[in-house]
């Protein structure tokens, strides 16, 4: 069992172990024999007469098909391969990712998305601030920094793997710079591909973006702006904020802070994600909401969510939930 870095006392260790064992038993009942998980040098059961294609993670050893990775066996028609469970993020077209700008280069931004290379967001794949569709001129290129700077957090979609790297696009209103919130990093294999990655939690006024690369953004809700209308009003304000950053007095800054209730919800959701990441559970909106409700119902202080007691409770709750869904379906 994977060692979890929590300081648990004896009873908590036993309870956690029991909950995790229960979850493991569900998963092993679910998977059929042919999709069994394998470790290195396990032989993969294959019907040799069928003319099987050996994919990634397999090796032909003395006529036997043997796994070279620890993972799950996947079969697609005649292709048999082993998919590693704890792999680095592997981007696919259409994935929503959250990244941090590492460099402003010629006509593009380079973003760090926790992948083996930096992703590229071309200037032409970005909507201009004034919303007009036109050719990007040299002036646009010089003003790139006014759109995104270094270390900005950006939400975008994967466009594809081009010759010079992974390309992203951010042509819709829902993509773009993320402010007023916090960025969390979880292992990428915990975020599965779903239909919806943008979640607007109305009752808390919080935006939750589950990036497929393991970057999760929790922040105050920002309405998707119509750039053409707002441009005249908001642009001078933004420029003021940036240029007068040092001379803005503390009182003025305080007025622009997130309201307290929203901040509490943001921190609670962030802690829920942290707890799920520590326990290694898949991060989906349902599980996050369940964890949130559990913590609210127990009247826990927000920072106590990161304590060992709550982690054990979450594990037990998840085991319960899964046993209930098993009984239903």
């Amino acid at each position, binding site marked *: 069992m994977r060692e979890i870095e929590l300081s648990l006392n004896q009873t908590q260790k036993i309870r956690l172990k029991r909950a995790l064992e229960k979850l493991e038993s569900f998963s092993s009942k679910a998977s059929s024999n042919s999709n069994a998980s394998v470790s290195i040098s396990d032989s993969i059961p294959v019907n040799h007469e069928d003319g099987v294609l050996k994919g990634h993670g397999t090796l032909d050893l003395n006529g036997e098909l043997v796994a070279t990775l620890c993972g799950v066996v996947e079969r697609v028609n005649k292709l048999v391969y082993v998919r590693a469970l704890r792999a680095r993020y592997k981007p696919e077209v259409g994935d929503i990712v959250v990244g*941090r700008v590492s460099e402003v280069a010629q006509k593009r931004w380079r973003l760090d998305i926790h992948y083996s290379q930096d992703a590229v967001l071309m200037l032409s794949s970005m909507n201009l601030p004034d919303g007009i569709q036109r050719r990007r001129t040299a002036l646009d290129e010089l003003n790139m920094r006014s759109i995104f*700077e270094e270390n900005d957090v950006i939400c975008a979609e994967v466009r594809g793997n081009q010759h010079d790297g992974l390309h992203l696009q951010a042509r819709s209103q829902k993509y773009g710079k993320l402010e007023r919130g916090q960025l969390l990093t979880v292992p990428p294999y915990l975020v599965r591909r779903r239909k919806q990655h943008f979640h607007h939690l109305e009752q808390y006024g919080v935006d939750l973006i589950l990036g497929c690369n393991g970057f999760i953004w929790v922040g105050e809700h920002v309405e998707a702006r119509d750039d053409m209308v707002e441009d005249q009003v908001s642009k001078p304000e933004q420029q003021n904020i940036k240029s007068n950053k040092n001379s803005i007095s503390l009182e003025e800054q305080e007025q*622009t802070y997130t309201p307290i209730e929203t*901040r509490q919800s943001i921190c609670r959701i962030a802690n829920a994600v942290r707890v799920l990441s520590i326990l290694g559970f898949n991060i989906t909106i349902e599980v996050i909401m369940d964890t949130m409700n559990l913590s609210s119902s127990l009247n826990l202080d927000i920072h106590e969510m990161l304590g060992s007691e709550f982690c054990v409770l979450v594990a037990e709750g998840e085991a319960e939930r899964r046993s209930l869904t098993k009984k239903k379906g």
Partner: protein
Amino acid sequence: MVGLSLGEKHFIQGGIAQDIRSDGRKRLTYRPINVETGVIPQANGSARIRMGATDVISTVKAELGKPISLQPDKGKVSIYVDCSPTAAPMFEGRGGEELSTELSVALQRSLLGGKSGAGAGIDLSSLVVVEGKICWDLYIDCLVVCSDGNLLDALGAAIKAALSNTGIPRVQVAAGASGDEQPEVDISDEEFLQFDTSDIPVIVTLTKVGRHYIVDATTEEESQMSSAISISVNRKGHICGLNKRGGAGLDPSIVLDMISVAKHVSEQLMNKLDSEIAAAEAGEDES
């Protein structure tokens, strides 16, 4: 260390101003502290402290040596900190040396007092074996395994835990040695004397961000600080050492205010640490 965007910095500053930090803590709340003692069996005493993601290991090794001629009735203690490259990429090679020296000096000032040995948090007179001739040299070595802010507090706590785990072998001095000769000593392998750690101070670091101070800052919060004061306070509430970091100037009234806040926080921290250390030692005895 990853950079932060303007929006994230604003969020952190807002959180500190509104008393709800990024993980929900209040300004004066510590992260959960996890203490393990006896992690390195070859040393006389060792401890590992985890505060959130910050992970430090401290070991104590005792050797017989000669006391300094100016202080014949006191033993010697030397503290050294090493930042492992696994803690952060910038610590690779010689990158961590500046931080290591800064931490070592800060710890020495907080725990050992001045050059004359006066005001030391650790009682050096208990380390002497034969006055003027033989004393115990304690080498305290600390390793930063993972760094997520608040290293000084974690190191101070680790040293306290390691010293309470330290067993100094009992020494038999052969009687009848003349004035100048080195007396014969017999170091026993069996009996150990536990070090008295009730007077060892704890270090509380207060980081000033905007108008407020926070305790136990993470790396992101530390990147927003204007200045930080580390105060080591002992059980009686007396200040054993004071250290200021950061280029911004502080009004003296703010410094006094921070000191009183640190005194208040140190009581809770001291109690928490003592109970955790006791639990860790009890757990170690069982296993």
